[in-house]
Every structure is written in C-alpha cells, then in structure tokens.
C-alpha cells in the first residue's frame, strides 16, 4: 500500500536546549528524542551514519551529536534522521540540499519497487520566528518540498 507524503511547517516555541543552540552555535545539532514507547531519550537509527556522511561530504557544516547512549534500531527499510537544530550559520536551503544528497547516497542501491521513505524534523530560526519543518514521505516528495521551500525563501 502506497503511503502518503506528510509535510508540516509551523511556528513553535523551542525548548531551552534548542534555543541555546540556534542562537549561539554554528553548524547543526543532532538531538535525542523521546520515543513514544520509552521514557528515556533515544537517538534515531540514522544519526551516526548521517553525521559521518555530513563530516566527510559537507565538511563546511559542523555537526554535533547529543550525548546519549541509547540508539533506537527499527530494522525498517526507511531513513530516520534525528531531530535537528540549525545553528546561526546554516541556512535551511543549504541544509535541505545536504539532506537530499545524503538520501540519494543512501537510496542509490534501491530497486524499482523499494521504499524510499524518509522521516525528518528540523527546527530553525526564520527572521525572528522559530519554525519546525516535519516531513514523512518519499524521496520524490522531499525533492518537491525542498524546491518549494527554497523558492519561497529566495522570493
């Protein structure tokens, strides 16, 4: 059964932790999150693969990972990117392009009927507002979201 692509872009009140990073740090922060089945925070399964790929392929973007010993491993054929905060020097279009390149890298061995589903949540500062982009869907859908988001910012 084909799942729909879900995308939301909302203004939010960030946590203090998130606010501190967005206002004072450079690069991106990969954050741990509460899993709905677990009380303690966990890091999503693609956290370290994504971080290593970023460090090797986008060295201009500094990557920081929250200290957390628990990594959730879902054994699904989907990409789960952790909750990400964008720092002062990382614009959303730049970051979305980096994520898109990463996804193409991850899915390059996919066969024609393989799922290319991705889960992504990014918190960033847009002028004086804090926004959260939340996307669950296909690679093709992500490409469209990326393009329209970049177009709206450029305008």
């Amino acid at each position: 059964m084909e799942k729909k692509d879900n995308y939301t872009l909302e203004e939010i009140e960030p946590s203090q932790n998130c606010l501190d990073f967005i206002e004072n740090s450079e690069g991106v922060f990969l954050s741990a999150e509460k899993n709905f089945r677990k009380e303690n925070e966990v890091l999503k399964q693609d956290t370290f693969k994504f971080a290593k790929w970023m460090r090797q392929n986008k060295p201009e973007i500094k990557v920081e990972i929250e200290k957390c010993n628990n990594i959730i491993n879902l054994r699904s054929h989907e990409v789960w990117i952790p909750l990400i905060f964008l720092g002062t020097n990382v614009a959303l279009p730049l970051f979305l392009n980096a994520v898109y390149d990463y996804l193409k890298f991850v899915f390059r061995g996919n066969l024609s009927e393989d799922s290319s589903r991705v889960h992504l949540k990014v918190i960033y500062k847009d002028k004086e507002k804090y926004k959260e982009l939340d996307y669950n869907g296909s690679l093709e859908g992500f490409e469209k979201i990326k393009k329209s988001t970049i177009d709206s910012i450029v305008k």
Partner: protein
Amino acid sequence: MTNVLFHTEELEKCWIDCTGILKSYFQNIIDYKFDLAGQSTEKLIKFVNDYENLNSIGHPDKFYNDCFIFKEYANLLSSYAQYWSQICSNKYEQSWDTLQDILDSLRNIKKFTLFDKTILFKFLEKQALGLEKLYPYRFFASTEIVVSQIECSICGKNINSNECNHIKGELYRGKMAYGIVKEIKDCLAIALVENPADKRCKMQSLDGKPFKFPCVEYLTKLILTQKINPLYISHAEETIHRIPIKDSKIGRNEICPCGSGKKLKKCCINKEFAQKNHIEIILKKDGILTSNDLISLN
C-alpha cells in the same frame, strides 16, 4: 570505469577469462540443469578468490572493491540457480529466502556499479520483483530495539564514535562495513510492517495453518514440464478480474466466483461484478535472452 561492472582493467580481464564458465552457467539454466549451473558459480567464486589472492599485494582499494563486486555477481548467479532448483523441489519457503538473496545481491551490485544499465540486470530485477508477488507473504516482523554498543566490522571500534570513519554499508578495500550489536538494552516492540529491512522475517498466518503457494506451484509445473524457461519469464502482474454476476448463469447456491469460498447468495449476489484477485505470469515478448545479453558488460 572501464565498463559497467568494474573500475579496474585487472578485473575486466578476469571477467574475460571467466567467459567460458559464464556461458556454461547460462546454458545450464537454458537446459533446466539448475544444480549444474550452481556448480559453475562455485568455480566462478573460486576463480575470483584465487585471482584476488594471487594479486593481493600493491593494489589500490578499487581492485579489492572490484573483487567484492565480482563475488557478489557470482553470488547472484548462485542464488538464481539455487532458486529454480528449490522451486523444482517444491521448497517454497526456502525459495522465498533465496529470492531475497537475489534481490540483496542486485541492490549491492547496483549500489557500487552501473550494472543496472545492462539488459541482464533489468531482466533479473523485473523478474525477481515479479516473483515476490507469487508468494502469500505480505507482512513482515520488524524489531524495535534499543542498542548501546555497536562495533564496526572493519576497525573494531565503536561505529558510533568519532574514532571510526567507516559508514555502514560502504566498501573498504573489498569489505563491506557493518555494525555488530554488542549490547541490546531493550526490545520495545516487534512491529508488523510492509517494508522491513529484511523480508526473510516473514509472519506465519494468524490461524496457525501453513501458508499455501498456489501461484508458485503453478510456476513449478510450467518449469518441470519445460513449458517455459526461467530466462523466458519477464515478470508477474497483479490484476483484478471482474466477473459479471447480474444476468449470469451462476446459481444462488453455487460458490461465489470472487474466491471467498461462500455461496453466491451470501456473498456478491447484489453486485454487478464479483472481483477476483488474479496474478499473471508475463513472458518476455522478444524471446529468451541472447548469449550476448547475458554476459555483455556494455
């Protein structure tokens, strides 16, 4: 890259040296001698292993990565022969796992080469994905576990640390990096999913009865009677047949043609059409693959 499969001239030469084995493999498939075809692939793997060991000093990483690709290609052919052998022995559950081996080899080869541009790759991909549809498996088990320590298969260090530069699933001097889970902290759930990482984790039916494989049994008959050859099968297509109910001669007490097993009067009697799931095995329009299609790397 010198061709679609290899990045080094050494492995291209090795491939040419193996042409005889490859031709013999495909001839055995054409002759329905699947076990003999499987034996050819053992020769192929031995040939590449010997070649790698003889030339193991002073080569760049891409040489070893090419050796990995060649072995993966040999594994693909081996699984393909084994699959048809299992089909002919009515080992349907095992054949599903072997079909997954075929698909995994295709993914690995596509990931590191341009082999997906060849006629053979397109043929095998379409056929293998089509064959999946002949099986009754639709949902799979996927574990949701919390892990803390994962060791890198290449360097032995914590794969989730700055000390390890290896990315899971990538090739390093002919070896694929993977993470070895050293500690599972918690198992949160086992979910039923349609797209697991591994479709070998198939679910048994809820009523506890073993699955039936009518479509695969039909395919087996066609192969055993040599009515169609594996290299002649393009793919399988799921369709819905609409069987007219109104004005038909089907009696009220006859079994409904939708396949529910109920009487017509208790099933689709008020519908214009009964809908029945149907799977069609589609043959290649242009006949069996040619010898050039099967071993060409261009």
